[in-house]
């Protein structure tokens, strides 16, 4: 019996496990290790602070998210013992693997910033990247009668790089609905030199921030939080005072990744950007937020990677080298408030561009442009997530980005050097 082990059952690990079970050659089993009892729908955390009709159900029992045939080991990982090809679990047991996938995600670490996790954490300083944090922030927002609200990205990379912007757009809408928008000052303090990492989208989003009266404090690298003075202090000693702080703390990979010697300086796994094989070990793959790749830490990336990895792992199980390549494809909705959203679609080489998606000309969804149908699509996505994406069903979206419908020509990607088949084998 051969064992394929996946570490972590978030969007990436669960989707991959469900895609692989039943498709691996006979004699192979699929095991997933994750200590958490529930699976959290992370995109919902953004909306929760603004929800006015009570709590929203964002979790499901983890056991119900796996297809029959997937073995779930409900324990946390202590260490990858790569030389022996086995995993040491917190409970002391060992789990042998023939192929391993690190899908242990990224966690926010407010403890990395001096002062952030102090006496004011959960009072005047918040995050919305955890369920408890998002709930506490909802209470804080409900009691906020006016003043300066600062959204701060401590450092890159973060999960869902557009989430801070969405939070600001939704906050603008929320305070307007409460009739106190003119009493609230909204500030975005970011280490980036603009609203977003890529120029075309950055320009569109910057002008949206400006229209909504949201001030941007760019190239602001947070060194510490002055709790007494209620101010962010940057490494170059600039101060941004706040009444209510919404922090997007430093993100790190799982502790066991670092302890096993598989992490970079933030605990993310150095990974081949195309094959998704770790740079350290040919039997170990990595996907989703756990990697050091420049693609977004986002659910869509985890989804597209699961299709690439499925093929590469099926090849590896037969003793073949990886023959499919990830192109960095990512797409995400950007909630802009007032019942509208933008949609962006991009990859390693092509930045988000205007146009229509997913089909050329007919769309129906406009790219990099506010529209009501994008907002409805974002809301409908929760159903798609639980019922199609996570169970590993086919979603009619290519894992490879298409230039169809986008306005700007770009060269097509090179053929796969492993099997020299070019584009046609990958989409088969």
């Amino acid at each position: 019996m051969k064992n394929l082990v996946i570490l972590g059952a978030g969007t990436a690990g669960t989707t991959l496990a469900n895609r692989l079970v039943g498709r691996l050659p006979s004699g192979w089993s699929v095991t997933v290790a994750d200590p958490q009892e529930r699976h959290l729908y992370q995109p919902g955390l953004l909306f929760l602070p603004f929800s006015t009709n009570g709590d929203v159900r964002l979790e499901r029992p983890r056991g119900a998210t796996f297809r029959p045939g997937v073995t779930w080991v409900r324990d946390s990982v202590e260490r990858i013992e790569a030389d022996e090809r086995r995993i040491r679990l917190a409970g002391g047991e060992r789990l042998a693997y023939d192929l391993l996938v690190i899908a242990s995600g990224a966690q926010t670490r407010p403890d990395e910033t001096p002062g952030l996790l102090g006496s004011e954490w959960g009072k005047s300083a918040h995050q919305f990247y955890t369920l408890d944090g998002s709930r506490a922030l909802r209470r804080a927002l409900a009691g906020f009668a006016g003043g300066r609200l600062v959204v701060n990205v401590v450092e890159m990379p973060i999960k869902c790089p557009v989430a801070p912007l969405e939070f600001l757009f939704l906050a603008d809408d929320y305070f307007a609905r409460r009739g106190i928008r003119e009493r609230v000052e909204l500030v975005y303090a970011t280490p980036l030199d603009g609203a977003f990492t890529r120029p075309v989208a950055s320009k569109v989003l910057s002008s949206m921030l400006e229209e909504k009266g949201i001030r941007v404090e760019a190239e602001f690298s947070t060194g510490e939080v002055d709790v007494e003075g209620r101010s962010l202090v940057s490494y170059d000693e600039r101060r941004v005072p706040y009444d209510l702080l919404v922090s997007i703390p430093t993100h790190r990979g799982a502790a066991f990744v670092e302890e096993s010697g598989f992490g970079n300086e933030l605990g993310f796994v150095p990974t081949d950007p195309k094959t998704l094989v770790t740079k350290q070990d040919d039997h170990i793959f990595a996907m989703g937020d756990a990697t050091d790749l420049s693609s977004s830490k986002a659910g869509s990336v985890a989804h597209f990677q699961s299709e690439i990895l499925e093929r590469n792992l099926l090849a590896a199980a037969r003793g073949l080298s990886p023959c499919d390549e990830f192109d960095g494809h990512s797409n995400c909705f950007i909630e802009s408030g007032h019942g509208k959203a933008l949609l962006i679609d991009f990859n390693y080489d092509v930045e988000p561009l205007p146009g229509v998606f997913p089909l050329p000309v007919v769309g129906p969804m406009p790219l990099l442009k506010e529209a009501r149908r994008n907002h409805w699509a974002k809301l409908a996505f929760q159903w798609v997530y639980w019922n199609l994406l996570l169970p590993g069903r086919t979603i009619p979206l290519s894992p490879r980005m298409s230039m169809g419908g986008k306005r700007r020509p770009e060269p097509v990607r090179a053929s796969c050097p492993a099997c020299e088949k070019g584009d046609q084998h990958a989409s088969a």
Partner: protein
Amino acid sequence: MPAREYAGRVVETNDEGFLLDSSQWTPEVGEAIAREVGVWPLNERHWSVVTFCREDAAREGQSPGVRRIARHSGIDMKGLYQLFPKGPGKLASRIAGLPKPQGCV
């Protein structure tokens, strides 16, 4: 692509001024870029960071981010921001003739 002249040498850069080919770099080119971006004069500590960036990029195939520089160069984050105000990762790479460090998008 724009070509720029630094220290009497014509080098190709991208729109943001990063060298397209890091083998066109010389210490004199680095000094001229530093002067242009206002990191001037370069002292020993600046040079230790620039040298680390070039060596690390040669090993790893990509420009190091600020955290990586802080971890391996012996100069902490605060020190790096004093040497290269506002953007140590970006400025050190540019002076070292390397591509802009990959931010996550």
